C-alpha cells in the first residue's frame, strides 16, 4: 500500500458538469459498475439550481444526468422558505428578499448508498435529499428511475434533509438534518435529534432507532452515522456541551439499546461542537469533528476553532490523533500525529469526508482561508483551499493535496469514494461567494476567470 500523490489525480468533472450553481459534489456511490454522484445547490436561487444525480460510465468516461429534481411552483409558504437559501453557510444567515417563482423539489442529494431491503429484488441505490418541502429518501432499482420511499421529512416537512445513509445488519439507517420553516433555517439541526431505520425502505416504513437526543437534551442533532467493528455509530452536535458519540449493535426491535462512547466533545467541550465524517480503518472507527462553516457557530457564538481527529477502538477506548492535548477522565490525551487542531492549520474547520483506498485512510478538509482573505485581506490575492491528507497507520499523516489542488475557490473535499476503477474525490466550490466577498472588500480581480461549480477528481 502507498499513499496517492497529487500527480495521480485527474479531473473527470469540472464546473459542476455544466451547472455553475451546483457547488457541491455532495455524495457518491458505486452502483452497477458505475459511479453515481449526487450534487447540491445549497444556495439555490431558481429552477436551474437543482439536486441532481449523475452517472459516470468508467468505460467511456461519459457522464449522464440520471436524475434532476422536478421543478415546482412556489406558493407563499414555499417562497418564504426558499428565501432562506440564498445566503449559504450555517445558521444565523441573512434572508434573501427575492426568490424565483419555481425551484427544484430537491435542491441537493446529501447522502447515497447501495442497499438491498427486504422487498428489493436486488441491491438498490438510495439517496437522501435536501428540500424546502421536507427532505426524503429516494430509491432506484436501475440507476435511472428514482422514486421517494419516505414522506417529505418522514412526516414533518420542516425536516430539511436526510444524511448519513448507513447500511448495517440488513437495515438502512439515516438521520434527519436541518430545519427549514418560513421563519428560519438551520442547515444541520433537525427538529429532533434522532436516527431512523428501516429494513424495507420500499415499504415507506421508517422507525426511530433511538429515543430523541439519546435521552439527553443537550444533543441538538445527529450529525453523522457510520459503522465499525459490529456497531452502528451516531455522532451528535451540541453547542452547549460538545458532541456525543453513541453506538449500538442494533439487536432486537428499534429503538435499540445504545451505549454512549464519548461525551462533552471528547472533553474538548463545545469546541468539538459536532462530529463530522466517520470511517472504519484498521478495525477502528475514525471520527472527525468540527464546527460547520467557518469553524464558528454564529447562532450560539461558539468558536472559531479547527477540527480534530479521534480514533475509537472496539473496546470503547479512544485516542486523539490530532487536536488539542488535554487531561480527561479517560487519561492524558496527546495528539499521536503530533499536530494540533486542523492538522496545524486553523482554517481547517471540519473534516468533511473520509475514505479508505488501497489500505490508506484519507481525510478531506473544509478550509475557509480563502473566505477570510476575501473578507479581511484588503484585496490581497486569495490563498488556501481544501486539503487531502493520507495515512497508512492512522497516526502519521502526509498532505496529498493542498490549496484546493490548484483551485483557490475549492474550499472543501465534500466526498471521497474508493471504487474498482480508482479513488474519487468530489469538491465544494464557492466561486460566486468568494467573488462577492472579495468584491465588497476591494479585491477579487483574480477570480474573474475562475469557473464555478464542483469538480470531481479520480486517482
Amino acid at each position, binding site marked *: 500500500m502507498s499513499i496517492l500523490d497529487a500527480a495521480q489525480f485527474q479531473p473527470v468533472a469540472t464546473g459542476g458538469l455544466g451547472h455553475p450553481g451546483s457547488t457541491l459534489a455532495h455524495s457518491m456511490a458505486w452502483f452497477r459498475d458505475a459511479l453515481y454522484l449526487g450534487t447540491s445547490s445549497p444556495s439555490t436561487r431558481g429552477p436551474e439550481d437543482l439536486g441532481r444525480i449523475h452517472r459516470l460510465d468508467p468505460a467511456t468516461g461519459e457522464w449522464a444526468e440520471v436524475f434532476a429534481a422536478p421543478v415546482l411552483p412556489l406558493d407563499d409558504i414555499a417562497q418564504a422558505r426558499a428565501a432562506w437559501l440564498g445566503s449559504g453557510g450555517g445558521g444565523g444567515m441573512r434572508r434573501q428578499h427575492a426568490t424565483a417563482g419555481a425551484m427544484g423539489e430537491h435542491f441537493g442529494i446529501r447522502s447515497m448508498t447501495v442497499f438491498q431491503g427486504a422487498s428489493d429484488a436486488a441491491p438498490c441505490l438510495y439517496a437522501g435529499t435536501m428540500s424546502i418541502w421536507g427532505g426524503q429518501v429516494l430509491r432506484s432499482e436501475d440507476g435511472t428511475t428514482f422514486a421517494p420511499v419516505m414522506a417529505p421529512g418522514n412526516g414533518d416537512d420542516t425536516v430539511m434533509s436526510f444524511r448519513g445513509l448507513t447500511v448495517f445488519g440488513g437495515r438502512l439507517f439515516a438521520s434527519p438534518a436541518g430545519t427549514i420553516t418560513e421563519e428560519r433555517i438551520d442547515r444541520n439541526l433537525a427538529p429532533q435529534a434522532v436516527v431512523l431505520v428501516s429494513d424495507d425502505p420500499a415499504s415507506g416504513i421508517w422507525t426511530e432507532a433511538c429515543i430523541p437526543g439519546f435521552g439527553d437534551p443537550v444533543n441538538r442533532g445527529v450529525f453523522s452515522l457510520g459503522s465499525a467493528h459490529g456497531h452502528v455509530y451516531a455522532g451528535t452536535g451540541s*453547542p452547549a456541551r460538545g458532541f456525543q458519540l453513541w453506538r449500538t449493535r442494533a439487536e432486537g426491535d428499534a429503538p435499540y439499546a445504545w451505549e454512549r462512547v464519548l461525551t462533552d466533545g471528547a472533553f474538548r467541550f463545545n469546541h468539538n461542537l459536532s462530529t463530522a465524517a466517520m470511517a472504519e480503518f484498521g478495525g477502528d472507527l475514525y471520527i472527525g469533528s468540527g464546527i460547520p462553516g467557518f469553524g464558528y457557530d454564529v447562532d450560539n457564538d461558539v468558536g472559531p476553532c479547527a477540527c480534530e481527529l479521534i480514533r475509537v477502538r472496539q473496546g470503547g477506548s479512544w485516542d486523539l490523533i490530532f487536536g488539542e492535548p488535554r487531561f480527561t477522565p479517560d487519561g492524558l490525551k496527546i495528539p499521536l500525529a503530533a499536530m494540533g487542531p486542523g492538522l496545524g492549520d486553523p482554517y481547517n474547520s471540519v473534516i468533511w469526508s473520509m475514505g479508505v483506498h488501497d489500505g490508506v485512510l484519507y481525510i478531506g478538509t473544509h478550509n475557509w482561508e480563502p473566505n477570510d482573505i476575501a473578507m479581511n485581506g484588503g484585496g490581497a490575492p486569495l490563498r488556501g483551499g481544501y486539503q487531502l491528507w493520507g495515512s497508512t497507520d492512522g497516526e502519521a499523516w502526509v498532505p496529498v493535496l493542498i490549496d484546493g489542488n490548484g483551485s483557490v475557490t475549492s474550499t472543501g473535499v465534500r466526498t471521497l469514494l474508493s471504487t474498482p476503477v480508482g479513488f474519487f474525490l468530489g469538491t465544494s466550490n464557492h466561486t460566486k461567494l468568494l467573488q462577492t466577498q472579495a468584491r465588497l472588500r476591494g479585491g477579487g480581480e483574480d477570480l474573474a476567470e475562475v469557473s464555478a461549480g464542483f469538480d470531481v477528481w479520480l486517482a
Partner: protein
Amino acid sequence: MPDPLFIIAPPRSFTSVIGGMIGQHPQVYGMPEVNLSHGDTLGEIWNSLTAALNFGTAGLLRLLAELHEGEQSEEAVIRARHWIQRRLHWSTAKVFAHISEAAGGKMLVDKSPRNTMKVENLQRLHRMFPAASFLHLVRHPRSTGKSTLELLKAYGAGGASRRAEFDPEQVWLRSQSHILEFSRELAVGQYMRIKGEMMLADPMLYLPQICDWLGLSSDAASIEAMLHPETSPFACIGPPSAPFGNDPNFLNAPALDMARLARITEPSLEGDVDWRPGEQFSKPVMRLSRQFGYG
C-alpha cells in the same frame, strides 16, 4: 535548570491547593506567589508591589528567606528584604536563575496572580522561559466570584472591595481573556487547561496525567507526596512582616480534606449573578464558561 511550570488562572481558581499539590512532587520546587512577571528588573517589580498586608511581597520574601537560610523567621525575612534592596538592578531572569540554583535545580512551579493581570506579563514569562509549561486552571465564574468576595470581606485586601464598581465577574473575564490570547502563541502541548473542580474531585486520576505531561515521575511515592501540600515550608502563616504569600485560607488549612473535595460541585451558569441580583452573567462570560466545559 529545568523549564518551569506556570499555573495561570484568575484569582480564586484553586491555584493554591493545586499548585501546592504539584509543588510537593519530589522533582519540583513549589514556590509561594513571587510575582516576578510584571517587570524586567527586580526594582521595577519590587517598587510596584502593594504593601498592604504584604500580599504582593510576602511570597518572594519568604521564598528567599527559606532558600538562603532554611527558615522563615522574622529576622530571615528582614535579611531577604535587604538582599532584594541591594539587587534592584537585577534582571527578572537573573532572579529566577538565582532561585532555581538555590532550589537545587528542581522544576520551579509558580502560580502568582500577577501573571495573568496583563498579557504582557505572560509574554514576559514566555520570553524568559521559551520552553516553560503553562497550566491553565479554570473554575466556574459563580464560585470564583463568590470566593473572591468572601476573601475580600475577610481580609479587605487592597482597595478593590471598597470600590462600588468592583465586579469579580469582570476580573474572571479579563484574566481568562489574557490567558487565551497568550495561549495562541504557544506550541501544541506547551499549554494545557483543566477544570479545577474536575481535578480536585479525583486527584488520583489527574495528578499522574499532569506528571506525564510535565515529564515527571508518576510513581506511587510521587503521587503520595503530591497529596500532602501541607508539607511545604510555605504552607503556613509566615512571620509578621511576611505573613501570607498565598491564599490565607489555604495557609490556615493546607491539608487536603478529601471528603470536602469530593463534595465540590459546579453551579449553574443560569440564573442571577449572586452579587448582582436581577442580572445574568454577561455573554462573553457565558461563552468562555461553555468553552471551558461549564453549563
